């Protein structure tokens, strides 16, 4: 059974704005019957003000697809089209208190339907740049299509490189066999096409440490409880280890505060509102738990000055 939030369940069991909107003047049809999801989003747009007066949906899909569609219609009613275009799939997922990683594509479908409907209203052609494959890395929500493309474009040859470029495999490590399979398949293709392998040597950088992590050596028996300084040092060390992969995406993470087992972090740059910041937090949390050997919680926080 999927671990759906109460909000997802509520929007699925009692969907709002379901059905045909007769007076719709903007319609977006997206989805794929082969992956079991398809959505028609219907909007009634005020031609004078560009405000979305009403929104309805029809969805062929699973519980989270229906919930995402219904939530989307609630979110965008009353927005102008330009405001609505700023709604991302992350916003939809956040509105539903999160979706399981395997189900994030349901929110993607919602955002795409919105773009398609607005393009339809404006008489533009909407092009889907959507690509998805089997979910490989469940810690960071990375699918096979993205890994394949990244391996091909960058001539990657090791699991470590894949983790550096895509984050895939940087968490619990259980997908390493699948990543190795992709590396073998793609590099085999490259070799078969007889092109010289385009191995761009990445600049020397601290690699994400993906070998099985040993718990930090236990503190000396003389010091039974970990001091605050020691805690901060350990957190900083974990952050230092993952910083290269965050920076590659133009982001960073700053330690704001520590309260017991709760760590307050400020995510900056591209990490702010990034489509996978939720996953990043989950990933950092995982690494902290490994380092501390006990459950830890990461809470996104504002920078020090604003606290």
């Amino acid at each position, binding site marked *: *059974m999927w671990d759906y939030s109460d909000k997802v369940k509520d929007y*699925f*069991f009692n*969907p709002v704005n*379901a*059905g045909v909107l007769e007076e719709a003047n903007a319609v*977006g*049809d*997206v*989805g*794929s*019957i*082969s*992956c*079991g*999801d*398809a*959505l*028609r989003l219907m909007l009634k747009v005020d031609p004078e003000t560009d405000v979305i007066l009403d929104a309805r949906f*029809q*969805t*062929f*899909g*699973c*519980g*989270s*697809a*229906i919930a995402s569609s219904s939530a989307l219609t609630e979110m965008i009613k009353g927005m102008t089209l330009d405001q609505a275009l700023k709604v991302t799939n992350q916003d939809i997922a956040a509105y539903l208190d999160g979706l399981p990683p*395997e*189900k994030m594509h349901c929110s993607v479908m919602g955002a*795409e339907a919105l773009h*398609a409907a607005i393009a339809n209203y404006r008489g533009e052609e*909407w092009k*889907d740049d*959507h690509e*998805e*494959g*089997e*979910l490989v890395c469940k810690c960071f929500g990375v699918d096979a299509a993205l890994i394949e493309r990244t391996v091909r474009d960058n001539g990657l040859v090791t699991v470590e490189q894949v983790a550096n470029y895509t984050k895939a495999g940087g968490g619990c490590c259980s997908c390493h066999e699948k990543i190795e399979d992709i590396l073998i398949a793609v590099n085999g293709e490259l070799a078969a096409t007889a092109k010289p392998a385009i191995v761009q040597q990445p600049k020397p950088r601290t690699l994400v440490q993906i070998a099985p992590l040993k718990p930090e050596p236990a503190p000396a028996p003389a010091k039974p409880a970990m001091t605050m300084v020691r805690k901060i040092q350990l957190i900083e060390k974990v952050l230092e280890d993952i910083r290269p992969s965050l920076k590659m995406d133009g982001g960073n993470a700053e330690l704001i505060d520590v309260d017991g087992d709760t760590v307050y972090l400020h995510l900056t740059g591209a990490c702010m509102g990034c489509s996978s910041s939720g996953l990043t937090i989950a990933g950092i949390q995982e690494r902290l738990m490994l380092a501390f050997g006990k459950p830890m919680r990461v809470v996104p926080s504002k920078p020090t000055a604003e606290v």
Partner: protein
Amino acid sequence: MNAPVYLDNNATTRVDPAVLAEMLPFFTELFGNPSSMHHYAAGVAEAVQLARRQVQSLLGAKHDSEIIFTSCGTEANNTALYSALAANPGRREIITSVVEHPAILAVCEHLEKNEGVTVHRIPVDAKGRLEIGAYQAALSDKVAIVSFMSANNETGTLFPVEELAVMAKEVGALFHTDAVQAVGKLPMNLADSAIDMLSLSGHKLHAPKGVGALYLKRGTRFRPLLRGGHQERGRRAGTENVTGIVGLGKAAELAQAAMEHENTVVRTLRDRLQTGILQSISHCFVTGDIEHRLPNTVNIAFEYIEGEAILLLLSRAGIAASSGSACTSGSLEPSHVMRAMNIPYTAAHGSTRFSLSRDTTDADVDRVLAVMPEIIARLRQLSPYWGKDGPKATPDFAPAYA
């Protein structure tokens, strides 16, 4: 809320209280290792031996030594395939079907990729029946083992394994059947059969999870998967899962006693469920081979809606079933069994499996029949493929990417 209705017995079954009662002493006073010399072993080795005879009897096997206890059906399947290749080095091909359980298909894929083994995957027709011509054509003296399931887990469709085994013998190949779904539901007489190996799993027949068995016909060349001990006559090393084995033995005895019930009462309940749904709901159909099917299984494809949504609504009504939709597995494609039968995507995603057991009652069937029409109607109202009272006559819904 009403009592829960469990119609997912092909996924797993409830442990029979009589099975549990049989097992409990082996957790407490009878904890000895059956291999030990001292008196703690007394009674334990005998219990394992009794269980072996109970399983032998259910399968109609000639010798009790033909039963090798394993940790599950998957281990039995892995053992059969690896053993056949290791024991017949001159033969490097496997024949199987496209609709097998992943416990066969994923092993074949691995062998193909890493061991250079050639795998022939025989297709099925729209009713899930094996293409015998393709099987015949794939048979040769290069084939080490043929492995076809006795009954399909999703549709209950039966393969004629006795005849298929005879065909394999003609080219000197071993014949294995994954009978995890069939054992305990269909009478068997392996003593008079050409089947060399058969896999079964305890938790599909009211025994606990974590125990299974491989039937290995006497005289069949064999290589163990696990080495490291003399247990199971050196064919499966590792200290015996005594409690599980004792439970499996008892469950086999009970299944044999309930065989007639399974094929009369359970079958009638299943048929009533099937007829009731087909009569009260439009645009749905039974998948698989209706004439040759397990007595406890029905798989119905509801068109224009998606299976996970059906399961969530059923679950809210207290009913447990299963689906072949993509979303329930976390993959992007609907079940490989539905695709192999060429079920259209709009129906494959809505395929729903109800699997009964001797636990199932008339009231359970009534409950499903009472809620099903409303669940289906409700989801169809949400579907862009559905008009006011039926599928859209002129489909105007063509999503942007496919």
